[in-house]
């Protein structure tokens, strides 16, 4: 069952049977824009990038994005940069895997962001979504629709943070502007 999260809504990543989640995946998918030109050379391709920033007590400690695909501790992994989005629908074009059990003890928040590297705003992107999946069962836990996101080039999607012994996810859904996660840092910090 998917929860369509609204802004600021928090869901606990505890399973209802009391077990904690062990691994989650943040998936980002979007559809390639219409191709133009004779040979598709002058396509209006859209490159969205998913990033995850690891924070310890509001200090960024590590970041996982297309140029640093695995966090130093190995707990957060990016599947790699996708420059053009998916031709079809539904699948994740970029994904970030988080092994919650292996996240270092001092990391207390992980913030997921999406940026439009090629500069198109979300108003121009088709069928863009971001979702959080329980990696062990493949079940979708939360989904966020980006399309129609207005004149923004970035979004601070969600944060996963420690809560007691487990983890909780809070949907943020804050629009922002920027090419990579670095541009978003000022916008992220107040959300921690």
């Amino acid at each position, binding site marked *: 069952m998917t929860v369509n999260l609204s802004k600021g809504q928090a869901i606990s990543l505890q399973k209802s049977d009391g*077990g904690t989640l062990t691994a989650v995946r943040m998936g980002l998918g979007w559809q390639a824009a219409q191709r133009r030109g004779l040979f598709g050379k002058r396509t209006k391709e859209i490159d969205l990038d998913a990033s995850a920033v690891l924070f310890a007590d509001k200090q960024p400690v590590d970041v996982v994005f297309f140029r640093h695909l695995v966090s*130093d501790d190995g*707990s957060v992994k990016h599947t790699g940069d996708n420059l053009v989005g998916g031709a079809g629908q539904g699948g994740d074009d970029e994904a970030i895997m988080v092994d919650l059990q292996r996240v270092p003890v001092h990391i207390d928040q992980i913030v997921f962001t999406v940026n439009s590297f090629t500069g198109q705003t979300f108003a121009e992107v088709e069928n863009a979504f971001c979702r959080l999946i329980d990696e062990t069962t493949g079940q979708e836990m939360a989904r966020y629709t980006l399309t129609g996101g207005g004149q923004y080039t970035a979004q601070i999607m969600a944060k996963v943070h420690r809560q007691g012994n487990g983890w909780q996810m809070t949907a943020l859904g804050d629009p922002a502007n920027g090419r990579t996660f670095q541009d978003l840092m000022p916008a992220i910090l107040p959300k921690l």
Partner: protein
Amino acid sequence: MTAELVRGQNHPLPGSRVEIRVTADTPVIAGATFNDEDGRMRDAGWIAHPAEPHLPGVEVSRQAAAVHRLAVDLAAVPGDVRRVNILLALPARTGGPARFAGLAAPCFAVTGLDGQEIAGYEVTGLSAESAVVALELYLRAGAWKVRAVGQGYADGLAAMLADQGLSDARGLADTIDEAVAAGTARSVAPPPQQPARRPGAVGGESADAGRAASTGGPLGEQPAATADQPAAPARDGAPVAGGSGPVDYRHPRRAAATPPAGRQPSPQPAVPAARPQPAAAPQGGPGQDTGPVAGDAPGWSMEERLHNQVWGMFEDLARTVAAYRSAVDFADTRMERELEAVLGDPRARVSPAADAARAEARARHGALVEQARTVLERDIAQLEAEAEVVEPALPPALARWDNPVWQAYEPPAERPMSLRVGDLSLAESGGLRIPLLVRLPLERGLWIDSGRPRGSEAGPADQDELRRLAGRTATVLAAHLVAVHPAGQLTLHVIDPAGSAATALLPLVESGALRDPPAAGASGLARTLERLTQRVDLVQMAVRSGATDALPPDLDVADQLLVVHDFPHGFDDRTVNQLRYLADEGPSVGVGLMMVADRDEARGYGPVLDPLWRSLLRLTPVPDDHLADPWVGHAWTYEPPVVPDGSQVLPQVLRRVVAARRSAGG
């Protein structure tokens, strides 16, 4: 495609025969009742329960258990049955919990005979109830469907049965409870180890539990005798099996983070005799408490798997130490910041409140570091356990010299993919050593640094000792290289201009592994370099023009390894250039280079040699932390390979190499 049902939702069943798997937090009674079209039980015979486990078309377990598997054949139920209710109840007389409150939600999975899950349902929201009708299978327009019901009864089984129109509900409920209590009393001791289940993975309990339980017989369940020690599912992948859980040796990432599609190979793992290997666990049983296995990594051959496993361990250690160091750094910074904040207020600096704040800051620091250390130690224990099985399984090319594999050494038929050139460790890794593997053929030359370790003021005596050790390390490495190549397929050349490495070279010379004596003096050096340079030129030309058959017949087609001792002694500008040429061009045509050199002594050549040094892999004759890993960039302490003192393994192996070469006609 599994349908995750919510309360009230229904789903068609594809066939009449299904299995229903139940996973609960504690031993529960599973049963089934038949209802007619009015939703009533016709009589007390329309219920399958532990005392009466068989009904036409339905079979339940005789005992309370945390895991059940009910077999249902809807084609075999009596004709006037319109509904089959699947129910759960907490046993009343076994001392277990009396209500579902506080227990994890029971999970149901309806599967076809092929094991394919059709529908799943988690009975959430239970609190004061002690019995629940979880699912109903019902006939609608000639087809059977399943509906998630989740109707709980605070007054237990009796109330539930009464609700279904049974007159003597109380009596039947008592009979069931008695039967369960009796079953508990006679049940045998619990098996020593319960298969760990992944929490909440609906229908994902280990294949073992499923297989055993599918018989429906009492042996299939986890006996209720364990009720005093609740059969809690493994949390967080921790081992279950009682309180004294053994260390969870499963690989933290390579197994767990694998998507179900199974990257995990199921090779015939090489298992050291001492460690019995449980039957290869299918991917469905990730919670199986299997020990580490040598060769637990992807690859086409055992050798490749071991190679990848060693690199996997290397990466794991690098990353787990990175996590630890990062946490400790953070703790240090935070404590400093907090202590500074206390100091920042001059008036409060010496007050009791400040002391308390300081103590608090230190305690927070200590707690975090302690936590990080626990994780680190857990990971290292896992890697150590893995190293313990991997190390004895390593083939000669990857083995240390104290490995028994050398006693049964035979020259191989093929060149291995990699060679162990030493061991790596970090300060945090305790006794754990990760083999440092380099790919063969050597793409980069090896440089054994006979110079002083950085930052140390070694006297001349130490300097001589270092040279001696460097010479010995070079010999050990060269011997290892020769031994792991097929007979006669690696020809050694040694340049020892001043004869200073004669002692170190003895094993190679005496055994005959080194066919020509070490080249001495400037002229010998020049001749050797000239010959190798010529060979590189010829082979390159032949390869470029595609005329490899035009090579002179006396050309040695074996790979070559040039070992240069005491560089730059005896070299001049011309020979230095030839050496650089060999270092650059040699690897592509099978000419490898190993140098024993002190960079300081070659300073006279100026910066022209810098590219040469950079192109070589620097090794040291004594442990030294100068190697960085490719993931995090820790400085790893390298330890050179050593032959155990007094061991004759090296000459023995070399003798066999030479014997094999002779018999191969070399």
